[in-house]
């Protein structure tokens, strides 16, 4: 099972990476995650973020992730400690 963390987007690090302030962790995650994690997006499902990654830049990533509540499905952690993750806008689905 994939590890999952949730939280609010914060500082933008590049056109495909940002800082996540972690608020929730899935029960049963295999790894531990700190309250602040750097995330590199390997796949995205975020309203407003272009589907084509070549169209991403720091501006549109900032407008779509800063403060937004995001779900990060963890793929791995690289040698720099950055989490590679599928990132999606969480819980907008309604009732």
């Amino acid at each position, binding site marked *: 099972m994939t590890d999952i963390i949730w939280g*609010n987007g914060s500082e933008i690090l590049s056109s495909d990476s940002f800082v996540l302030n972690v608020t*929730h962790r899935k029960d049963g995650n295999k790894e531990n995650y700190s309250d602040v994690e750097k995330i590199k997006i390997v796949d995205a499902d975020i309203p407003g973020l272009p589907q084509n990654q070549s169209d991403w830049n720091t501006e549109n990533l900032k407008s779509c992730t800063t*403060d937004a509540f995001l779900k990060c499905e963890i793929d791995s952690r690289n040698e720099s400690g950055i989490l590679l993750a599928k990132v999606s806008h*969480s*819980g*907008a*689905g309604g009732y």
Partner: protein
Amino acid sequence: MWREITVNYSGIESVDFDSLLNGKIPAIVVRNFYGQKQCEGIVEKIGNSQKSIFQKKLQHIGPFLMSYTTKKKDYFDNAKQARKTFEDIFSENNQPIVKISKIISRILPGYSTSLARESGNDFSPYVIRIHGNGKAIPIHKDNVKYEGKEYDFTGIDNQLSCIVHLQEPQSGGEIVIYDKQWSRNDEKLRNIDFGYSQDVVSRAEFCKISNLSAGDLVMINPNYYHKVTQIEGNVSRITLGMFLGLYKKEQKIVAWA
């Protein structure tokens, strides 16, 4: 006191509408938007209509935009299908959007009301929700300019929510509206699946609308936090939901779900 106002179908006035937009009142309840017999007929047709199961637990008819925030093609494909179902459920003159447009034309003369369209695609006009015993809707807001940013609603000045109550449960299913509007900073208080922590409305005044009957229409500003209390009993709560987006300069109102 922050209380809803209650009117009959022909009794709503523009001042009420302004009060709702300005947050001076939490809701307008329009009694007998549909008659009791009409509701029974509509509910019977709903019973015979195909439903979808949302998130493995909720019965719906029709898609709603917030569950398709990044899946526009799927939304519009499903909306096309749903419109046929709604045409079967409601006769032409009884379509909720037609009845609401009659209210709008009276209180906002000069405004047009139509179904929202984007790039030649019609939005779904409604979503019908059938919620049974034990279901509740957590504290949340609806703000299409934030969560529906892939759709062309950037120009709306106000968003309103219209909920037509078609069948009331034996107990519960009450609407609670808090005197606090959503702000982006509140995203820190989100729940994982949907909605927000109770902390987001701590100390906020609230209004609980308890005495609704089948056929009543409730209009709220959905950027104010709201929830539905737990439904109890064997009779499901059946509601029809739609949003209205107001473009003041263009004097038009569009509807979608």
